């Protein structure tokens, strides 16, 4: 029932040839660039938190390939996104401007998500239909089913992306959301980012089965497990799922096997529950940037000079976003009361 994609490809690079997936050389270089932007932006936010300039940080490092592969399968501006807190690279990839994203970390008055009301990493961006999530995990899943339901009722062919962790898939919201979506065949893609941990709790304490996506059969929708460290494999799987949803053939549950390279969040010390050797191994074997770089080199799409140039370009973007956002005004305390209700 479940489809397993690129899971045991014994490759240090990527499992598919991008040309066979309909991607140009430029597309692949762009994907790498976006992944790197996601990584460097994330690292910057981590530093800002340590410096006391942002109160909180939660990292997407390790999960960028899955996010970029997913992002490129959607149509920004038309499709809807109900992302979860690690999806920074996805937001950058669908086109949320880095400066505007940075405003959220600094909680500035002109932060486009909420004017400093919402926590960082609870992404919201109205111009691109990015819906902010609440802090209880997985509550976005039923809502995403509802967003897609509205698209279906109006006869529109927009598709909704919703993501969550494997820990979040233990919640009733997961079951209820998927069941509803499958019954009504609504155009939504459920993306489980399985990084093996929910804070300190390993996946084998969340579920007695190996794959979250194996549950798809129980709801009557296709389930796919894919190597989440391979941006092209994820793109392939997501493209098929999104096309199917757009044709009116209903939802898909996609599980990306991925890794969390950092602690759960700035409030966590993961030395309590995982060894430093484990992290070193993940960095050596599972870093999606390393794999993508190897692919670009192997395919002759880039050389060292190109990587250097891109690195410089990305750092300029991140620096510019940081400096600009930090200089923006803070919200006024009296505005705390605004937006509770409609008010002209």
């Amino acid at each position, binding site marked *: 029932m479940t489809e397993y994609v690129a899971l045991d490809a014994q490759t240090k690079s990527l499992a598919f040839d991008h040309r066979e997936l309909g991607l140009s050389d430029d597309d692949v270089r762009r994907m790498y660039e976006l992944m790197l932007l996601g990584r460097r932006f994330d690292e910057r936010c981590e530093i800002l938190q340590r410096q006391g300039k942002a*109160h*909180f940080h939660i990292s997407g490092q390790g999960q960028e390939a899955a996010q970029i592969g997913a992002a490129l399968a959607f149509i920004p501006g038309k499709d809807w996104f109900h992302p979860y807190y690690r999806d920074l690279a996805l937001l950058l990839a669908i086109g949320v401007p880095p400066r505007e994203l940075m405003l959220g970390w600094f*909680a500035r008055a002109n932060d486009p998500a*909420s004017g*400093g*009301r*919402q*926590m*960082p990493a*609870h992404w919201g961006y109205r111009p691109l239909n990015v819906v902010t999530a*609440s*802090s*209880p*995990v*997985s509550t976005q899943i039923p809502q995403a089913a509802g967003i897609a339901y509205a698209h279906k009722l109006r006869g529109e062919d927009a598709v909704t992306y919703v993501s969550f962790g494997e*820990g*979040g898939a*233990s*919640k*009733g919201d997961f079951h209820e959301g998927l069941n509803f979506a499958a019954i009504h065949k609504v155009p939504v893609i459920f993306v489980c980012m399985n990084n093996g941990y*929910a*804070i*300190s*709790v390993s996946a084998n*304490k*969340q*579920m007695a089965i190996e794959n979250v996506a194996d549950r798809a059969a129980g709801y009557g929708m296709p389930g796919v497990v894919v190597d989440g460290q391979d941006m092209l494999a994820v793109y392939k799987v997501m493209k098929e799922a999104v096309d199917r949803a757009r044709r009116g053939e209903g939802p898909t549950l996609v599980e990306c096997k991925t890794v969390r390279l950092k602690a759960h969040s700035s409030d966590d010390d993961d030395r*309590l*529950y995982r060894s430093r050797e484990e992290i070193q191994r993940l960095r050596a074997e599972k870093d999606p940037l390393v794999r993508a770089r190897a692919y670009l080199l192997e395919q002759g799409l880039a050389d060292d000079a190109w990587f250097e140039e891109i690195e410089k370009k990305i750092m300029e973007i991140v620096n510019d976003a940081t400096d600009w956002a930090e200089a923006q005004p*803070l*919200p*006024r*305390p*009296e*505005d*705390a*009361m605004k937006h*509770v209700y409609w008010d002209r």
Partner: protein
Amino acid sequence: MAQMTYRDAVRRALIEEMERDERVFIMGEEVGVWGGTFAVTRGMYDMFGEKRVRDTPISELVIAGAAVGAAMNGLRPVAEIMTFNFALLSLDAMINHAAKVRYMFGGQFECPMVLRTTSGWGQLSATHSQTFENYVAHVPGLKVIMPGTPADAYGLLKAAIRDPDPVIFIEHTHLYRVRGEVPDEEFLLPIGQSNIKREGRDVTIVAYSRMLHEALKAADELAKEGIECEVVDIPTLRPLDLRPVVQSFKKTYRAVLATEQWLGYGVDAEIAAQIYEHAFDYLDAPIKRVTAPPVPLPYNKHLELAAMPDKEDIKRAVLEVLR
């Protein structure tokens, strides 16, 4: 008598009760190796093993629901839900089940469980910073405790674990590091008892949990200006013991009620109503409420502080009722 943090007092109560009664066990998210979101159960996994300190999936409904079942079947579960925001997802189990087991079985079954959770805030934004003690304090069949000091946390948690009825025990994240005297010898405190924490003749301040400390600070500062406040703590919200409040009010004729709740339909409304019922003739000024304004708590520090009550708000309210 030892000085002890609120966190250690809670932990001590848990450890003692687990040593005393092997039916007591803990379950919740991250309570095992990680030692709990607020490090309350740290070390307990090694002491008692996985059988009695059990990590659960992220499933707040099953944590509470399974606790109800295990309690009906003879165990003494202490379920931990990281924060009340997530405990919302447990409410069906607590309100439709835990609270009603005894009644709907005509007394033949009982549900002796404790649901420990937290209240608190600190740049965590709207859906991470809420507490709904009034939601659960409204429900017949539940007991609701919100201790403000280490000694109360210790004595009341032990009583809660031994209580034959379901108890919701709400700790405050800002209090975990607060130190206080806790006697070395074991003791239990009665559930449903309010206490005068500071004596005074001019105004009665009623508070609990973090606001108790704000009230005591306000009282200290006002004392320097010659205003003597009586501070009454109500660590048990249900069953609510209002006698000390009413007695105090009959002495001061004025009351300020301080909670972190939103203005409107809160615990304070119940207290005010009872004061009106029992001491109407003593009223010298309208009862004043200190609350959070009715707005989802924003993330930005400046916005957040503007929206959370503290000792300054209490002082202002005291001066107003004295005017």
